[in-house]
């Protein structure tokens, strides 16, 4: 640790883009810090001032994603929060997501559902439709921002019944992408599913569309897709909560006694 780095000014810290704190921790830090700051400012005694300073520090740490203490200790929590997932968006803009989930069903049942790609939009929210062209090839339509769509053709590149399916967009696709799903039987827990997805968005407008398609957290989106797949396979449905009554409904009003 160089001395010069320890003596950063506030402006340096605020403009510093190098984060070393994971997103969840940032959120907790920013939220808790703000509360503490507010509470400290409300009290007008010595303890209040101390709490406000501590709170302000935490809030700043959350807002900037940079922790001076972590810096000094050489700690970086950005990648440790993501459990079994790995996700990288390298310099080329390539999106690479790996996820796994355990589903309490035999491999054959999961394999045959997935092998018919027309089923995928049932649980992959960013897909509008998939149509099979023949046994190997299919046409995919994905939802893009502002009601537009992105389309491509894909073909199956490897296929081992009840074990593994690999697919890849065909030559000349606007958005080259590929995926592999592996079905690993367990002794008593059903099937372990391992999914790897890669998207190579081109530079420019289309590339930015794809980036938006996956939002800030592609790994989170894939995890949610797999959770929906699990629910569909195990419970035969995906739980809905939108459409329940609440006091937020437009026609809701306070009841008269």
């Amino acid at each position: 640790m160089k001395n010069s780095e320890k003596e950063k000014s506030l402006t340096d810290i605020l403009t510093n883009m190098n984060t070393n704190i994971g997103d969840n921790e940032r959120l907790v830090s920013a939220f808790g810090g703000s509360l503490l700051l507010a509470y400290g400012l409300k009290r007008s005694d010595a303890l209040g001032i101390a709490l406000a300073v501590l709170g302000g520090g935490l809030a700043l740490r959350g807002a900037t994603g940079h922790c001076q203490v972590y810096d000094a200790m050489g700690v970086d929590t950005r990648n440790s929060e993501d459990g079994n997932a790995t996700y990288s968006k390298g310099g080329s803009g390539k999106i690479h997501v790996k996820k796994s989930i355990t589903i309490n069903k035999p491999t054959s049942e999961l394999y045959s559902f997935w092998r018919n790609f027309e089923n995928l939009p049932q649980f992959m929210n960013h897909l509008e439709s998939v149509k099979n062209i023949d046994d190997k090839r299919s046409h995919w339509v994905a939802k893009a921002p502002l009601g537009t769509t992105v389309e491509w053709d894909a073909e199956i590149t490897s296929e081992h019944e009840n074990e593994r399916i690999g697919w890849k967009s065909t030559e000349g696709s606007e958005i080259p992408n590929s995926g592999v799903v592996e079905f690993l039987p367990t002794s008593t827990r059903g099937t372990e599913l391992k999914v790897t997805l890669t998207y190579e968005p081109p530079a420019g407008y289309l590339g930015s569309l794809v980036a938006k398609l996956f939002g800030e957290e592609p790994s989170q989106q894939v995890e949610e897709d797999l959770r929906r797949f699990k629910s569909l396979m195990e419970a035969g449905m995906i739980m809905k909560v939108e459409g329940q009554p609440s006091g937020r409904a437009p026609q809701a009003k306070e009841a008269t006694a």
Partner: protein
Amino acid sequence: MKAVCWYGKHDVRIMDVPDPEILNPRDAIIKITTTAICGSDLHLYNGYIPTMEEGDILGHEFMGEVVEVGKDVKNLQKGDRVVVPFTIACGNCFFCQRDLWSACDNSNPTPGTVETLYGYAGSGLFGYSHMMGGFAGGQAEYVRVPFADVGPLKIPDSLADEQVLFLSDIFPTGYMAAENCDIRAGDTVAVWGCGPVGQFAIKSAFMLGAEKVIAIDHIPARLKEAERENENLTTINFDDVEVYSKLKDLTGGRGPDSCIDAVGLESHGTSPDAILDRVKAAVYLATDRPHALRQAIFCCRKGGTVSIPGVYGGFLDKFPMGAAFGKGLTFKMGQTNMHKYMPKLLAAIEEGKIDPTFVISHRLKLSEAPMAYDKFNTDKDVWRKIVLKP
């Protein structure tokens, strides 16, 4: 329909809201005939549980009559009387199939927040915040019940609503707390908290063969209720006597074999650690106030069990891990695996082994809920268990 909606700390309102509809093929719509306010609803009322939104319908203890079923619900028919468990469970996943119903994988569609806090998320719950799934609760005229082919328990006409209503939460919760103590011949079980869950834990401990049960609280009416209901019960008022010494004295110097914390995160106490907890909770340095739990751990005999039906949500400060390790304690806790216990406990009610109506202190109209919440929160001596009728 009319529903009790949450609008913030100490702010619940009776609202006219749309009626619930079938959203999934395994749903049913229940017309509520009787519902209740749970002590854990006070955690929401007092603003301790994050991810509540203005307008959320409260309530997870309810029963009623089936008025509509989704196309995949074959076991229920219009007109069936049912009690509904407060935990929602699919019946198909690894956890449900191992009787760990409150850990269901498929009932909470928004597990992200809980996973951030806990690593993995448990089942969805009725009327208990959006991190628990955002399900509308049953303090209303109607409720939508997901996985209705698995959860609701049919009730014979010979039993009145009030006799079976508490199968929805507090009776199984108290029972599981006692079962978790793995009670053996000659055992002494100490129960912190004589609220309704504590009362059912006391009864259940006797039912499961405890030789001695000791109840600890400082609200005279609750201690009296416990004494009235259990012939052989010993009680301790912690305002009058020092709990550790008294328990040691009552157990021949050994300490209780099992300690049940039926208090949870809003523990009240007057010792220095309890007061420090309040200060820390007020400045958000610790979210839960675990005084009763600390005392239970300290008082438990070597190799004993600490069973925790009381709800905890966040982080504890000054948790006596050294005492827990030094004595080799076993900890059992968690949301109740409702579906496992409901049929067995319904049978106990039918056989007359227990009449759960003894915990009811007030019977009110649903429209009186805002007043009832306030009274329940501020006057625990008199307002012990409130039942509401739409």
